[in-house]
């Protein structure tokens, strides 16, 4: 086969898989969100279209497709229409570096880890453009919030990815999965996994970090002016596509990727992705939303120092014990996770309660007189 033909076949295969993953997640995850959050909040959720309402996202998709594509009069038409496409680059490209099974990666790059992080900048860009081009203040505020948040939380994200890269000794995702033959990294670095989950929620703009589209404050944030399939693009393909990319990354980094009992296969990967997606949905249904400054404080004052300490200690242990560094790293990580779980609540509560001005000037109105 000539070089050109193989390139084109490669490209088409990459595009099909790259488009299929966000598309599938846009169909499956919204359904899961509705039914699961329905279950959590003691109601049914959509259950009419198809078995258990499974075809509801398809019906929604058709509806969005048939809707009129409206752009505000004063919007910057070009950028307004371009923004969803720009944001969509991320999930499509990021899929290409994920190993789906042994020997099956679309682009087996030796720096796949860095690429996943690098591609996420297109989502930031798309959201920023959407927020600005809509010519709406809610959109602008949402876009700016979103960018500030995603840029901030990218730092702990990268730091934790570096920790895994150090444990593996390679930036290739294939090597990451290969190194988890005996033990998954969630058991070695639970601290990194914890930070990864929290930072991931922020990267995905999900509750409790869903400030960019906080519906009770900013109507829908950067999505406010979008309708029809452009909204579908953002809400379905980009957001849930990114959610599955995040889940895929998490599964690859911490849960052993496609590895599993009996035989390693993409099926295991899908199960792990669904498990991580369940975490997203669970958070979504349970938590209230943080406030902007609390969000930033949390990133810069808690997550980043934590990740830095973790990074330093892990690196030190790897240098000191180059042959057998996994047990001490795991010991350190577990110890700190347990310490955090034990200390987090009381410390945070004390810090929060200190904010209260302890005035006890209850005006006396004796109840007997009433």
């Amino acid at each position: 086969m000539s070089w050109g033909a193989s390139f084109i076949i490669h490209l088409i295969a990459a595009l099909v898989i790259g488009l299929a993953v966000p598309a599938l997640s846009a169909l499956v995850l919204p359904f899961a969100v509705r039914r699961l959050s329905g279950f959590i909040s003691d109601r049914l959720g959509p259950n009419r279209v198809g078995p258990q309402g499974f075809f509801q996202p398809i019906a929604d998709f058709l509806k969005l497709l048939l809707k009129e594509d409206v752009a505000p009069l004063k919007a910057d038409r070009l950028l307004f229409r371009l923004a969803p496409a720009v944001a969509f680059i991320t999930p499509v490209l990021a899929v290409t570096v994920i190993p789906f099974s042994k020997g099956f990666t679309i682009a087996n790059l030796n720096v796949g880890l860095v690429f996943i992080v690098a591609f996420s900048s297109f989502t930031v860009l798309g959201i920023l453009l959407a927020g600005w081009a809509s010519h709406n203040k809610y959109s602008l505020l949402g876009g700016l919030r979103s960018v500030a948040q995603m840029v901030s939380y990218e730092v702990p994200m990268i730091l934790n990815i570096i920790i895994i890269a150090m444990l593996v000794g390679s930036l290739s995702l294939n090597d990451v999965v290969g190194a988890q033959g005996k033990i998954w990294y969630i058991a070695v670095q639970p601290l990194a996994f914890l930070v990864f989950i929290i930072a991931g929620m922020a990267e995905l703009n999900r509750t409790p970090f869903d400030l960019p589209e906080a519906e009770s404050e900013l109507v829908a944030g950067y999505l406010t002016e979008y309708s029809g399939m452009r909204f579908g693009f953002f809400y379905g393909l980009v957001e849930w596509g990114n959610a599955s990319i995040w889940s895929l990354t998490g599964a690859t980094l911490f849960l052993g990727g496609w590895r599993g009992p009996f035989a390693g296969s993409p099926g295991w990967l899908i199960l792990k992705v669904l498990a991580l997606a369940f975490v997203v949905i669970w958070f979504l249904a349970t938590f209230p939303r943080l406030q902007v400054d609390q969000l930033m404080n949390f990133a810069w004052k808690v997550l980043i120092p934590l990740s830095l300490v973790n990074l330093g200690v892990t690196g030190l242990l790897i240098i000191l014990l180059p042959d057998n560094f996994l047990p001490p790293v795991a010991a350190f990580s577990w110890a700190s996770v347990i310490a955090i779980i034990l200390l987090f609540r009381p410390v945070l509560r004390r810090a929060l309660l200190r904010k209260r001005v302890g005035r006890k000037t209850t005006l006396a109105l004796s109840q007997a007189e009433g």
Partner: protein
Amino acid sequence: MGEAEAAELAQHLLGGLATDVYLEADRIVIALEPGKLHEAALKLRDHKQLSFRYLSFAGGIDYKDRMDAVYILRSVNHPVVAEMRAQLDREQPVAPTVSDVWSTAGWHERETYDLLGIEFEGHPDLRRILTTSADGVYPLRKDARPHRQQRREWQFEGIAAPRRLPGEGDRGERS
């Protein structure tokens, strides 16, 4: 402390300020000159025993021949309700503001101004609040004619006014 006792106390406190202090339907009514409202309000609020620190509302009543400003106060120490009222001029109703005595009066006075046209002197922000587009019309005045006003606007904008239903008068005045 019951109402009667409180009324006596208020009478004693206000002295010559109040024109009349009497009990009506389980509340103390303190009739005042409009000019004395502010002073009396301060005294009633700051009195240790009466302690009318809570203003329920400030409003007004249009009696066709006069306009009354009405303030309902509650004592925080005793289950006593007091009412300050002042007679104002019907055509040019002006009362001093008590929004510096109780901040809550700020919006109540705006509302009263909006609905009855009572002007509160010294109010920091006396704008219409509920019916912002009804220029020059004070809907709760007994002679307010919203229908007529509306018709005039329609006429002005070249919109056909809706036909009057049989039996629907113009509330008092032929147009």
